[in-house]
């Protein structure tokens, strides 16, 4: 969900500013969400949060950042400082590069809330890989998942501030971050979402026919709701809302009005094509099963 809280954005952006100083929006792919939650569930007993790197692509002018992939890194807590295992991080990054060379390190994530001064050193470990851009830091707040309705995903970018000599010191500015997914992922996500209401949190894959049935049922349900609403407004039980009325009118008028004879012709030709292909397919299938039977009958 887009975080529209009043935030301190990196304000100025025009051709003059360098790409790494311009404001940008960042979109997160659902794979990353799932991966982070999975890593959070699998973390070791003593560790309180999961840390990892974010991979993705950046648009040419730096204004759109897409976070597409992620992997977890191991860290140790030494004297209240968190040290990331660099070798493991390097290895994982190289392995990922081999499969997908265009995904580069964009930043890192952590699973707890809140930013603390302790994270600056970690931030600086990732800084050299994202140069000249500043690494993006994303927090996935698992507590807020449980307590509130939001998703708990916040993204921050850093900007160096102050006169201190340690390189990691910077302020973290919130960045707009939203979840975006593409068509192919949509069907997968729908599949997973259907599993969320069952007792065992699992769902089996639907055949095409079932899928169509589900969609038609949903459509019917929606139409029922709308017609009930319209009825109740006409009877005066509910206040009419102009915006909704307008939407309904637009939706209904989208059905194209085609001349009946033209429609009949189109319909019939479409139907004939379909039936012919089905006939051919079935004929091939019978042929195949005949060969199968004949092969099995070969006398030895």
């Amino acid at each position: 969900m887009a975080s529209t809280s009043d935030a301190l954005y990196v304000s100025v952006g025009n051709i003059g500013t360098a790409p790494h100083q311009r404001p940008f929006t960042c979109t997160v792919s659902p794979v990353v969400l799932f991966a982070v939650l999975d890593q959070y569930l699998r973390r070791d007993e003593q560790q309180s949060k999961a840390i990892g790197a974010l991979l993705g692509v950046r648009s040419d002018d730096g204004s759109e950042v897409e976070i597409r992939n992620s992997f977890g890194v191991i860290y140790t807590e030494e004297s209240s400082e968190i040290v990331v295992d660099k070798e493991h991080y390097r290895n994982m990054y190289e392995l990922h590069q081999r499969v997908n060379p265009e995904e580069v390190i964009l930043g890192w994530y952590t699973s707890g809330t809140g930013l603390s001064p302790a994270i600056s050193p970690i931030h600086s470990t990732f800084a050299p890989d994202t140069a000249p851009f500043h690494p993006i830091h994303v927090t996935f707040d698992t507590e807020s998942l449980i307590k509130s309705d939001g998703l708990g995903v916040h993204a921050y970018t850093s900007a160096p501030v102050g006169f201190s000599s340690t390189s990691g010191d910077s302020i973290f500015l919130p960045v707009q971050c939203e979840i975006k997914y593409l068509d192919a992922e949509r069907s997968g996500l729908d599949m997973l979402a259907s599993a969320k209401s069952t007792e065992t949190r699992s769902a089996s894959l639907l055949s095409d026919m079932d899928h169509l049935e589900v969609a038609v049922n949903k459509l019917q349900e929606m139409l029922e709701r709308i017609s009930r609403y319209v009825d109740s407004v006409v009877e005066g039980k509910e206040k009419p809302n102009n915006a909704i009325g307008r939407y309904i009118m637009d939706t209904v008028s989208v059905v194209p009005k085609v001349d009946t004879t033209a429609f009949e012709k189109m319909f019939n030709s479409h139907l004939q094509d379909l039936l012919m292909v089905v006939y051919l397919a079935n004929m091939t299938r019978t042929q195949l099963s005949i060969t199968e039977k004949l092969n099995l009958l070969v006398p030895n």
Partner: protein
Amino acid sequence: MATSLPTPEPLKVVQIDGLVVLKIIKHCRESYPTDVTGQLLGLDDKGLLEVTNCFPFPLDGDDDTSAQYQLDMMRCLRAVNVDNNTVGWYRSAHLGNFVDANLIETQYSYQNSLSANSVVIIHDVSKSAAQSNLSLRAFRLQDAFMKAYEAKKFTTESLAQAKLSFSNIFEELPVKVHNSHLVTLMLHNLEMPTLDSSRLRTLSTFASSQKEQSVADEARPLAPNFDVLDLELDPFMQKNLEYLLDCSDLQQQEQNNYQYWQRSMAREQTKMQTWLTKRKQENVHRAQQGKPLLPEDEVNTLFKLPAEPSRLESMILSAQMHNFTKQLNQFAGPSLARLYSIQELQK
């Protein structure tokens, strides 16, 4: 092996974690149109194969580098507590053209070396996009076929004896998708409607409503997906038919091969027969004249019968064609339904 492993229980269901589904989709979609493969990790437990994570294979690289890649990846993943157990592999496909010798060979090596319960998961990219219904199927080779493949003998007789044909090469397993609690929570949160009616602004024209689409879309990312109600069917059927035709051409070639072999067999056999009768005549002659008889079993060394070509290729092709026709049928069902519903709407 010195000790025999306990035979695992036969697999009945494959349960895939939500994360794996999304990762497979992402990887396959990104590398369109090349086919890609990857490894599945998880646990095999009492007839239920749980797949909890996966990673993709790089396209380049030969056996050595990819084995090294596998080891490195597994090591790194184990450090973050991911299940370290390989349970199979996945592969992308387009409109069902995945049944080929490569698939069988790789799956055979997996089932042989790892465990009898390895599966291959096929994700069909174009079909998922066309129907907007996720196409994810799990297969494993059947035991009878495995034995025949080991022996590498695919003559017609051996197949008939083992009652093998194209339909029982693979065994398809039902696939279930499973989510952890935290992910379920997130999915619920994702669906919370945030737009209520008082905030809707009145639209003045139809054109402005198009621009306002995004407002409504943003509100409910998991809103019901009606892409499945699209009427477009030509590209899908066309491609399918094209593939089917290619397959039948190849099958035709295989048939020609087989017939050629049969004809040459027949020729050799007639030659053998004539030679044998001549020998017999000569022997009778010699018996009359009292000379030693010439051996008759030279016939086997003189005439070599050509070896029967392996029927494996034609079996694979038949399985592939079977798959295509099944797809066409499956596609036609919902299309008919869609057509008739449009007719109703028009009335």
